Every structure is written in C-alpha cells, then in structure tokens.
C-alpha cells in the first residue's frame, strides 16, 4: 500500500481512449470552488493551476470564486451541493498534537456536521484514529499515526497541496536575535518570544502589526488569530505548548496522568491576579468547568466536553476525570483553557443565566488576569497596548507589547523600514519583497518557519465520481505540488501529502510526499484506465454502465 500510487504510475499501461458504446456517461462539468483572488491570491492561483491540469484528463472544470461568508456557508453547511474546493487548516499551538486533525478531519462520525466535511468514510481509518487517541505511549502512538498517514495517502480524501511557511521580520538592531524563540510549526511570532525577547537599546516596546482587527478580549472569547496573540500572554493557562511542540506545565507546577482517564494538577504557588488577589485552586476548578455552564461560553465548550468532573483535592491540587481516554488532553484542553478569576466571572455567569447573551460578549472595563502581560488599552480598530506584569513568575524583558492594526500590507512593510513598527508579525504579501527589503536594509532580519497547517483540495465524497478512490488518486496525481509551492506560494511553502506537517518531526511520516505522483499526467491516465474510465472524443466518461445522476453545481 505504501507505494501504491507510484507503482500504479510505473506499471499500468492501459489506454483511456474508447468508443461511446464501451463507456458510461460523460462526467458532468465539475466546479472547483475557491476564494476570490483579492481575498486569497495564493489559493486562487493554485486552483487555476490545478484546474488546468485536470482539464488534460478530458474533464470540464470550472473555477468558481465565492466571497468569504458564502464560501464558508456552501462548503461547511451545504455539504451535498459542491464538487471540490480549496481549503486550509491553519497552524495553532494546540494543533502541535496531531490528534485534533487526525480524529476530526477523517473519522466518519464527524461527516454529518463535523470536521469531516468531505464525507470520508473508512472503518479501518476510524479504528486507527481511535487507537492513537487512547494510546499514551509515544512510540506506539507514532506507529499508529504513521499507519493512518499511509492509509490517507492511499485513499486521497484530499488532494494535499502545500504546508505554507510563516514569514515574519523584525528589527535586529532593536531586538537581540539570540533571544527570539522559534516554536515548532509556529516560528518566532509566539508567546515564548514575547516573554523572552531582549531589547538591545532604549526601545523597550515591541511594536508589531496586525492586518485584521481582533474581537474583544476576554478569557472566554476566542478573539480571532491576531487577538489570540494578545489573549495568550494576558491570561495564564495550566499548561502551554512549548517551543518543541510538546505541552509544558505553566500555571501548573506539575501535571500527572496516573491512568488514561485521570489527570492530577498541582497549581503553581504564588500566582496573583492583576487586582491583587491570589490565584486559588477554586479559580482553576472554575476555569475548567465554567465553559460547560449552560451555553454561556460556546467557543470554549468543545474543549471541556471530555471532562467528566473536576475536583479540588487540596489547597493547591485538583483532579480531572475524563469521560474517554484522550492522549492529546494536555495540549488540546489544558493548554487552551484560560485561567479566569472566579470572583470576577462567577457573578457574570450568574447574571447571564436569564439573558440571551453569552460570555464572549462581555467586555470588562478593567480585565483581571494573571499572565505575563496586562491590558492597558484595547482600541480594537487601532491598537492593543499591553504592559509587562513585573510580578509575574516569568516576567517579560520588554516594557510594552503594542499591536497596531494596519490593514494596508504595503504600509506595514514601509513602517518596518522606517522604524514605526519593529516586528512585522502579520505579513500576507509576496515573501520575495520581504527578502529584498532585508537585503537592502541591514537592520531587518527575516524569519521563515514551516507552519503546522496545510492547504489542500477537498473532494466531496458524497458526489460521484469523488466517492471513487481511483478517481481521487488520479486527480491527486495531477497536482504538481512543487510547482504550487514555487509559483503560487512564491517559494514560501513545501509540498504536502499529509495533514501532519514536517514541522512536527516526531509524528510526520517522513517521505510521504514522494509517495504520490506530482503533476504526472501519464500516471493519472493509467489509474483511470485501470479503474475503467474512458476518454471519448476528448471527454472523460465513467466506467461502462455508470450513469451520471448528479446535477452540476450552481
């Protein structure tokens, strides 16, 4: 199975050409949905390249850009309607453990309205995904994850494109390059850098840019990608994903797992809220249970769904009982849930009981937190200003952390050059421009790091012919990943054939990208011919006897 596609490419010789009598119906025009060029230029260009390649098989492929809101609505909530689409999974610290994507993306239980939006269904995969989730032994779990990646390589529920690289830049005369911390799959724009970065001169403020404005900041709201950069350093968590991608105790001094369903936590001694009150074990219990109070914290509820109970077992200790074994719990839940002060938030939750509002909508006038930074001001259309918390047990080396909201990417580049910002954290432009800037400005250092996320083409397996493994294998064989990485992503990406990024070297199946032919028309034609597809008058037809019963996308 490992080298299934490659072996097919090398050995299969049957021809696609056939007469109309020997073939089934012609395949209907297929629609490849993507985002508009202005919103996602790289994805849009990749879709055009891939559609061109697929047309060589005798398919009619229409590329259809949809604006953001409609794009999400159609793909996620109208699952019977579309043929194929570009999509992405973004890198987040909690995805440093592969469980979330391994389980959610491909397990058939998530096909109806969960993450398995392509409708992939393979009981063999379901079993592997469940086993890796319950396996706490790293070596045994890795074996299971390698098997899962090989199975997906065979079935090709997605046409994987690339793992993008995060490109950021900073002023190296302001910040000590040696104090930048690179986090696996994230790069240097991360919590560890904000805490450890050392100023070289009088400038003590990190001034970074954000292209998009965040939503309001509170411990029960996920404030978008950019907002979460601030939230992560304002509110402590019991654990954090460390630079190596593995969970490390943070607000907890110690975390132990005596069995697969029990987690014992010892709270770090001496932590204080910004209003001067101590962080207690009751606060920790509250933080782990509050998201499950009614529907008042829907964004965080998924992260506590597997918690059966949380009990304080001493002045500094608590025990969490899980409903099901969960190898990734320390990353996916304990490194995600913010510590929130019970004396502030319990009355808020009580007040919300008879109101339609949820906790996300609460904006405290003076947010109470315990993290390494505190909120000074959050003008969400302009900037977020945080100041270092000098009493924190891991105090930052900088004075302030200021995030400027700058929708104009070109202006951000200019601002970095002129010194108005000293950390270009959010850059969606051409990576080459940034490299050129670094060459012409000796003060600027560019940092490029492989992301945890990936870009892909999703095949809707609810609609023929995408339910056919051979058809998906053929389409995937035509995706020239190297070309996409170089042309569409300007070299700031590497070819992908797995949902586990090479940045997670512990879990990634080394060499899997070479186990799918890339941009290989002969291989794709051979796969289709072997499966009975036929080329009639330049149009690809189903195997003999198969009728086209699916309406084209409108």
């Amino acid at each position, binding site marked *: 199975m490992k080298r299934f596609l490659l072996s097919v490419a090398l050995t299969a010789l049957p021809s696609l050409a056939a007469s109309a009598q020997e073939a089934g119906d012609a395949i209907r025009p297929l629609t490849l949905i993507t985002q508009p060029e202005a919103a996602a230029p790289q994805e849009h260009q990749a879709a055009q390249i891939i559609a061109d390649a697929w047309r060589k098989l005798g398919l009619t492929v229409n590329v259809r850009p949809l604006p*953001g*809101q*409609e794009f*999400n*609505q*159609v*793909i*996620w*909530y109208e699952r019977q309607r579309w043929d194929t689409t570009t999509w992405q999974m973004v890198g987040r610290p909690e995805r440093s453990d592969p469980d979330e994507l391994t389980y*959610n993306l491909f397990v058939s239980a998530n096909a109806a*309205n*969960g*993450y398995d*939006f392509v409708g992939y269904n393979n009981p063999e995969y379901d079993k592997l995904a469940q086993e890796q989730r319950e396996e706490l032994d790293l070596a045994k779990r890795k074996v299971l994850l390698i098997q899962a990646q090989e199975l997906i390589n065979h079935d090709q529920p997605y046409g994987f494109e690339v793992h993008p690289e995060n490109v950021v830049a900073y002023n190296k005369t302001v910040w000590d390059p040696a104090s930048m911390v690179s986090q696996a799959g994230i790069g240097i724009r991360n919590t560890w850098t904000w805490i450890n970065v050392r100023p070289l001169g009088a400038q003590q*403020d990190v*001034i970074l840019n954000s292209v998009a*404005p965040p*939503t*309001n900041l509170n411990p029960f709201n*996920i404030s*978008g990608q950019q907002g979460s950069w601030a939230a992560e350093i304002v509110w402590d968590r019991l654990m954090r994903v460390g630079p190596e991608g593995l969970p490390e105790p943070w607000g907890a001094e110690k975390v132990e797992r005596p069995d697969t369903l029990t987690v014992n936590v010892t709270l770090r001694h001496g932590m204080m809220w910004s209003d001067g009150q101590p962080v207690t074990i009751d606060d920790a219990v509250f933080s782990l249970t509050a998201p499950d109070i009614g*529907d008042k914290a*829907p*964004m965080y*509820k*998924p992260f506590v769904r597997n918690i059966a109970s949380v009990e304080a077992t001493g002045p500094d200790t608590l025990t969490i009982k899980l409903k099901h074994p969960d190898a990734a719990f320390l990353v996916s839940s304990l490194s995600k849930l913010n510590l929130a002060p019970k004396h502030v938030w319990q009355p808020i939750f009580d007040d919300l009981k008879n109101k*339609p*509002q*949820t906790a*996300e*909508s*609460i*904006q405290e006038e003076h947010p109470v937190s315990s993290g390494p930074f505190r909120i000074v*001001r959050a*003008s*969400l*259309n*302009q*900037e977020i*200003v945080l100041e270092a918390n000098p009493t924190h047990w891991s105090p930052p080396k900088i004075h*302030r952390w*200021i995030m*400027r*909201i*700058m*929708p*104009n990417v*070109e*202006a951000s580049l*200019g*601002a970095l*050059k*002129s010194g*108005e*910002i000293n950390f270009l954290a959010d850059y969606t432009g051409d990576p080459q421009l940034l490299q050129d800037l670094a060459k012409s400005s000796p003060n600027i250092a560019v940092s490029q790091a492989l992301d945890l996320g990936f870009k892909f083409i999703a095949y809707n397996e609810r609609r023929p012919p995408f339910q056919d493994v051979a058809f998906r294998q053929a389409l995937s064989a035509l995706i020239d990943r190297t070309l996409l990485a170089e042309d569409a992503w300007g070299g700031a990406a590497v070819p992908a054939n797995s949902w586990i990024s090479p940045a997670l070297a512990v879990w990634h199946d080394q060499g899997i990208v070479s186990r799918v032919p890339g941009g290989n028309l002969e291989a794709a034609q051979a796969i289709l011919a072997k499966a009975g597809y036929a080329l009639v008058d330049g149009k690809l037809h189903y195997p003999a006897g198969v009728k086209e019963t699916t309406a084209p996308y409108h």
Partner: protein
Amino acid sequence: MARLIADRIGHLLLVLWVVTTLTFLLFRLMPGDPTLNFLSPSFTGETRAALLHGFGLDKPIWEQYLIYLGQLLHGNFGQSFLQNAPVSQILWDALPNTVILTLVSLCLAYAFGIVAGAFLAFRRGGLAEAVAIPVALATRAAPEFWLGMLLLALFAFQLGWFPTDGAVSPGGSLGSLGQRLLSGDFWWHLCLPALTLTLFLQGLPLLLMRATMLEVLNDEFIVMARMKGLSRWSIVIRHAARNALLPVVTAFALGLGASVGGNVVIETVFAWPGIGRVLVQAVQGADYPVAQGAFIVIAFVLVVMNTMADLAYALLDPRVSVGARR
C-alpha cells in the same frame, strides 16, 4: 418657505427610511450568517446556534426589522457582534476623526481650487493653464488608493517625513476631541491622508471656479468696471471672484456630505481610525449593527448636506421653489 422646508424634511426622512431598510436587508440577503466570519467552521452547530441566539439573529426577519426600527427611533444602534461594544460608541469614537480629515482636506482643496481657478481664468491661454488643467484633471481622475500609496512611498517610506498609519504614535492615546485638536502628534499623522484627499478633491473647485469666472469675466458689469479704470486685481477679486463663488460654495456643501462616506479608501490606506474604516471592517466581518449604523450616519450626513444646499439655493435664488407652486 415653510412649506419648502417641510417638503425637504419629508424627503429627507423618506430617504433615510429607505436607506435604513435597504441596509437592514442587504446584509441579511447574503448567504450564511455573521458567525461564519469569525467562528471557525470546526465549531459545532450548537455553538453557532448559541451565538446566533445571543445576537438575536434566530428571530424571524420581520421581527428583527421591527426591533431594529424601534431601537433606532430611540437612538440605539445596537451592539457590535465583533467588538461587543455599543455601536453608537464605536461610531462616536470614529466620526470626529472623519470629520476633521474631511473638513481640513475640503478647506485646503477649496481654498486652493478657488484661488487657482480664478488665476487660471484670468490667465486664460497661458502656459500655466496648459500645465495646470491636465494636472488637476489627472489628480481628480487618479484612484485615491494609488494617490495615497504614491504619497506614502515618497513622504513616508523614502523621506521618512510623515508616519505611515494611524492617528497617533504607537502606544499614544487619542483622548478627547479637544486633546486631539491640541495634539501635534495627531496633526502630524493627519498630514498624509489630508494631503491625499486634498489632491483628490481640488480638481472640482478649481475647474468649477475657472469655468464660472470665465463666464463672469465676460459679463457687462466687468466691462463697466474696466471702463471705470479699476485695477485688474480689484476686478478679479472684488467683482468677478465674489460673483463666481456661488456654485463653488454649493459644491462645498455637497462635497462635505459625499466625503464623509467617500473616505473609505483613504482611511484604509492610512489606517486612519475614521468611520470609513469602521464601515470596511464591519462589512468584512458581517458585523451587521456596526455596518448599518455607519451606513445610516453616512447617509444622514449626505442627505442633510444635500437638503441644506437645496434650501440655501432656494434662499439665494427665488426661482427655485416647490414643484407644486410652479
């Protein structure tokens, strides 16, 4: 006159009601709902339903409309979905920045346009006209974002004279309106966006003033002034220019209304925290209440300025009157 005023106010209210209704429907006719813009699709339907309930978007559309109109009549624009702050507060924070940017730019553009237009009319057929008219037309026709980027590249990136974005330096606070007006930092940040808008706006008053001046300079009272032996300066400034100003002043009132809503591009290029930028972010994030509020404020300013220009015309020119009396 009273009837004219009542008629115009009636029109104003009708236009505002239509704008309000269209704005309400516009966002709701888009596929999907606002949670799709800020909630990862990985969240369950349960999460989405809870948030929609919190926003009041699970109610029938007619009920949402009635609630919306009722709240609007009480001056309540609602609560922002994304920022979770009252819309009126978000708009009130942004509006002064837009008004300052607009007023400063309009005053500069019209001051320059009036003087340059009068001068070009007076020196008709000269080298100055041959150069100035194409330049005025080019800056008038150039897209604002292009003009803005050009000025950014030159004055901010290359020369470093002005900041690239925002209304205050990083970490600084905008403060009250009074503090803003007294802040050198604020005015320094205003320079490039105001210059861009000024360049964009100056074409209209310049060409209008020139055309009107050319007409006025051929009038009999100017010939009479010449025959009386008045100086050229006195003829141009005291007699011709004053008479040519009326259409330019009317254009100023209309331009003020249009510019409040038309600064969207400039505010985005320079990250100027005005109402245009609030509108762009709200539309991108499907933040219905903020987008509706911003549209209504912009429409209100535009319609009020149009009405005022209309009334001013009626006041200055008795030939303009209500249709029924014609």
